[in-house]
């Protein structure tokens, strides 16, 4: 009979209901035979930390902890924490387990020491392979075990690593073996991912169980990230360096994580196009011209990072970046080529290399591995072929049977076995044999019960001037399968937080820098051209969506109004529908159908590029590539709006329903606009967002006025126009005589006091352009300003009585030209690729 696993002894304060719940969970928990488990020790006892944690969960009334967790999870979903599967357009939500992996201080100290030693060892190996090459020359590492890696970057051999080291961030995937010891399963050095998810997991769990989190002395993650950032900064030549995170872009599987880290660490999130190399240095294209990039933390694989010297088909990289590295003009981290040490072929050599390079054995063993490129090792693998796992020796495509990770021969079909044996015979150097590691289990919450689940723990090490720092925690994945030899995020795994407990109460620390070290600044550097571009278009999409919603609202109201005879006169309705057709909200066919259907299409038809749902989707896509610049509230509202508008095109709406939907969507847009007005710093980014909005509003107003306030406009037309441009009240309070053509045109186009008029947009645009940086210091206006000044003088001097449709069309066209001029001047394809011109001389 196993020793009693009594929770009651250590949790005397639990009430009887809680005790019953806890007992139920523990009694229902059945560890797998012969597999170590975090919750149940081999002697049958449960660690005290787990009892405290589960006891606290049990202390919540039945179901409440799940509710709390569900709430926190919903928070994640709403803020769009998700990881994207390649090729998917919609982001997939990312599963998080409510139960953390709990590790005690002593055990953690051993793990941390092992990971630190391994990081030191691997850095030394990289240093040698890319430097002196003694390990190969002395026969300690076969040359062919090095050259098989696609990440052996020959172009950087003999080049001192930029920033003095190859790795600033290293991660090890650990598993706990049958004997309870920790093993290294894999090394991650190319661009280790998951640290941002660890941070996010922590946010969710500490939100769901705040008291518990503090009471258990869980060690904080923030100091680690602060150290990591300091390490990157210290590698640069300048004292206040500009640090970028180079992302493959929003289609990357871990883009969210990258955006999140960039925001958390205060790095500039850039794509390859944002950077340019000139004279051996890297620059960021900003709206103020080229600005030095001192450190590039890359999440782009080495093969794609410089199309001139690596994969020439790459669109993700920066041409000439290697030249800049060789010239010492930029720190790229991890140094391209670090991914070399991810090869399994190297694993078998590390125990000996540790003794040789560090003079001590590995503190954390790695999985016993035999590289078949050597005759003796090949024989060992052949002799034990049925008891070993066979794996690819190097990352890359490899044999199809092994594409998804190491396999046992017995798990393959006879045909696959024969094929694999033949391939191993022809090219043994592509394969390794590995001891099979069975992973230990940790409890996961599934179907209302605790269930043992195999897990892999990723631990991170950051290089700092004071040596390696290990993140007290990590990114843990638990499998939903009972027998896990390989775990992929893509296949039903959950992520969990990792709690490293401290014996002492933990001080509350966040990423607050020491007061004396912080230089006060009010502007966060220069706005990158890409961000300016995206913000501008986000502004335009949102404004266009708003205008379309106003049209839909008017369309629906016209049918419901008791005064229908007045409002819904055939001609006015036709003009309204013509406007919707004109900007692509509905197609011609829908325009000829019933009005209710037209309203429904304009809201929900995903095939029409100008429908509200399409515009909001475009806005969301644009926003998704600059998540680090938008507040969480903004993003949540936008996602929420899109999901409310989607998949509704088949509903047949009554006019009341379309009205209600349009009203609700307009309210959300108003909130979004309020958020940007109230919460966004009045720096360049906000100006571009607002400029997009202003240009779009000006253009839309011109169009609506041309359509509804032409020479033959009816009273109905003008009435509707005032509705659409939200100027009904202003007009009526100002002109008691009733609606007339000239005052309506004046109010909507020329009146600089009406925030909906074209004149007001032009005035606002002038302020924005004047506040933006210029490329030249010769005092001459740049092209956008030149055009805007011309437009403003026309608008300001126009006489209301003389204002006709041709003049309004001219304003509209000039606004469109201005939009192009803004894009030519400030955005990526524009002239900002040239360095800032200095005239020199004294003023």
């Amino acid at each position, binding site marked *: 009979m196993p020793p009693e696993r009594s929770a009651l002894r250590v949790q005397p304060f639990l009430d009887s209901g809680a005790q019953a719940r806890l007992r139920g969970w523990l009694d229902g928990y059945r560890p797998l035979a012969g597999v170590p488990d975090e919750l149940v020790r081999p002697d049958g006892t449960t660690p005290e930390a787990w009892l405290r944690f589960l006891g606290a969960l049990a202390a919540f009334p039945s179901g409440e902890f799940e509710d709390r967790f569900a709430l926190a999870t919903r928070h994640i979903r709403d803020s769009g924490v998700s990881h994207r599967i390649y090729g998917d357009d919609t982001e997939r939500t990312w599963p998080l387990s409510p139960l953390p992996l709990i590790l005690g201080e002593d055990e953690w100290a051993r793990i941390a020491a092992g990971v630190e030693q391994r990081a030191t060892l691997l850095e030394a190996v990289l240093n040698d392979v890319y430097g002196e090459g003694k390990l190969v020359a002395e026969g300690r590492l076969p040359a*062919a075990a*090095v050259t098989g890696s696609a990440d052996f970057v020959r*172009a950087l051999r003999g080049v001192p690593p930029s920033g003095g080291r190859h790795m600033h961030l290293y991660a090890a995937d650990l598993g706990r073996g049958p004997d309870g010891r920790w093993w290294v399963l894999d090394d991650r050095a190319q661009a280790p991912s998951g640290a941002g998810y660890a941070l996010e997991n922590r946010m969710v769990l500490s939100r769901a169980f705040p008291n518990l989190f503090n009471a258990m002395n869980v060690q904080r993650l923030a100091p680690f990230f602060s150290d990591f950032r300091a390490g990157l900064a210290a590698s640069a030549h300048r004292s206040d360096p500009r640090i970028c995170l180079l992302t493959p872009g929003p289609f990357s599987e871990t883009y969210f994580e990258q955006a999140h880290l960039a925001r958390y660490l205060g790095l500039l999130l850039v794509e390859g196009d944002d950077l340019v190399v000139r004279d051996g240095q890297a620059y960021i294209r900003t709206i103020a011209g080229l600005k030095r990039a001192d450190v590039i933390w890359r999440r782009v694989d080495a093969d794609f990072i410089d199309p*001139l010297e690596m994969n*020439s088909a790459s669109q993700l990289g920066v041409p000439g970046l290697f030249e800049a590295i060789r010239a010492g003009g930029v720190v790229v981290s991890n140094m391209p080529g670090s991914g070399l040490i991810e090869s399994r072929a190297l694993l078998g050599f590390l125990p000996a290399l540790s003794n040789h390079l560090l003079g001590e054995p590995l503190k954390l063993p790695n999985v016993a591995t035999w590289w078949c490129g050597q005759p003796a090792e090949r024989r060992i693998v052949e002799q034990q072929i049925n008891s070993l796992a066979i794996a690819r020796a190097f990352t890359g495509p490899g044999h199809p049977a092994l594409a998804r990770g190491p396999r046992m021969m017995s798990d393959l079909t006879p045909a696959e076995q024969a094929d694999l044996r033949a391939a191993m015979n*022809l*090219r043994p150097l592509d394969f390794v044999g590995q001891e099979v590691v069975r992973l230990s289990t940790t409890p996961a919450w599934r179907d209302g019960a605790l269930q043992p689940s195999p897990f892999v723990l990723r631990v991170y090490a950051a290089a700092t001037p004071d040596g390696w720092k290990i993140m007290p925690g990590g990114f843990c994945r638990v499998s939903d399968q009972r027998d896990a030899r390989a775990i992929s995020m893509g296949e039903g795994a959950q992520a969990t937080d990792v709690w490293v407990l401290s014996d002492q109460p933990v001080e509350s620390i966040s990423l607050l820098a020491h007061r004396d070290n912080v230089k006060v600044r009010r502007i966060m550097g220069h706005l990158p051209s890409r961000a300016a571009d995206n913000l501008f278009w986000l502004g335009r999409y949102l404004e266009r969506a708003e205008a379309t919603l106003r049209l839909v609202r008017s369309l629906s109201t016209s049918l419901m109004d008791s005064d229908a005879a007045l409002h819904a006169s055939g001609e006015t309705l036709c003009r309204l529908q013509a406007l919707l057709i004109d900007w692509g909200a509905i197609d011609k066919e829908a325009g000829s159908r019933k009005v209710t259907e037209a309203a429904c299409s304009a809201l929900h038809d995903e095939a029409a590029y100008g429908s509200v749902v399409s515009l909001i989707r475009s806005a969301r896509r644009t926003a998704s590539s600059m998540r680090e610049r938008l507040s969480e509230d903004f993003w949540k509202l936008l996602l929420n709006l899109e999901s409310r508008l989607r998949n509704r095109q088949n509903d047949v709406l009554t006019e009341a329903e379309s009205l209600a939907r349009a009203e609700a969507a307009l309210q959300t847009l108003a909130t979004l606009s309020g958020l940007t007005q109230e919460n966004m710093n009045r720096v360049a980014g906000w100006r571009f967002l607002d400029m997009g909005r202003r240009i779009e509003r000006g253009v839309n107003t011109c169009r609506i006025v041309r359509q509804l306030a032409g020479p033959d406009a009816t009273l109905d037309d003008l009435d509707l126009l005032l509705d659409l441009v939200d100027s009904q009240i202003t007009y009526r309070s100002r002109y008691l005589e009733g609606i007339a053509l000239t005052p309506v045109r004046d109010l909507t186009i020329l009146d600089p006091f009406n925030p909906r008029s074209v004149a007001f947009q032009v005035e606002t645009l002038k302020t924005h352009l004047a506040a933006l940086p210029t490329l030249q210091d010769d005092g001459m206006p740049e092209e956008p300003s030149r055009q805007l000044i011309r437009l403003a003088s026309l608008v300001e001097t126009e006489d209301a009585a003389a204002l006709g449709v041709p003049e309004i069309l001219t304003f509209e066209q000039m606004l469109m030209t201005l939009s192009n001029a803004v894009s030519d001047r400030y955005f990526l394809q524009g002239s900002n690729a040239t360095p800032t011109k200095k005239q020199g001389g004294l003023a």
Partner: protein
Amino acid sequence: MIYELRHLTTYHYGKPVSFARCSLRLAPRLGPDQSVTDSELTITPTPARQESHIGPFGEVVLTATIETPHRELKILARSRVNVHRPLLPRPLNGPAWDAVRDQAFATTRLDVGSPAHFLYPTPMTALQPAITAYAAASFPPGRPVLEAAFDLTCRIRADFAYDPKSTEVSTPAIQAFEARRGVCQDFAHIMISGLRGLGLPAAYVSGYLRTIPAPGKARLEGADATHAWVNLWCGEALGWVGFDPTNGLVVAGDHIILAVGRDYADVAPIGGVVLGPGGQTIDVAVDVIPLEEQALRIG
């Protein structure tokens, strides 16, 4: 044999290009059996900045940045090369190919000539069971490596049709293999893929081949072309030996090496030229002039 080489590449753009960055691998490679006495590169318009470094396989790489607006980019490489590669003694034999393979796996060299660099597949020379099987027919266990490789060289020449229209510069080996046609680049890729499939270290060589004008005819200016063939590492004693599957030859004095890499992508003479917004056309003119011939012409 001393050669005078002239390799002119001209890009014509539909619209002016204001910025171009390119990397050029156009300086013939020095080697034990080839010396370069003179080599120069002229780019028009003149680059704002030039930098040169030694590339991963020992080649001189010149990177140039051009900031002058231009509609035509001319890259002229001229050099004088002395090729003194001896003929291999016949009959062709050498060590057993399987022994060569084990030597390559065990090499402790990582210099540019090390066989270790040339053992693994690349995107253009991916391992393909069909190509490996094709190559394996020439490599029964224990066969002397030179004999086996020459047999494969001759089989490729016999089995494949020379057809410049069938493939492009980016065509991977398997596509030309299945079509049974292609140009020198494709034949080299096929042979390399096959040899590496067997575990042998094989390299892609780009260069020039001396053409002999028809009797009584003068050599046509600019009519020569770049060529490609295969280097196979044949063990520590023999080192690298060239095989030309396009012509069914063992490489000797008529082949001038420009660069050596794992596949075409490693040695592409010109990389990274910006595509012009208005489309572009490229002209390449190559002259390979044996020096005694030039002396005759001058005389």
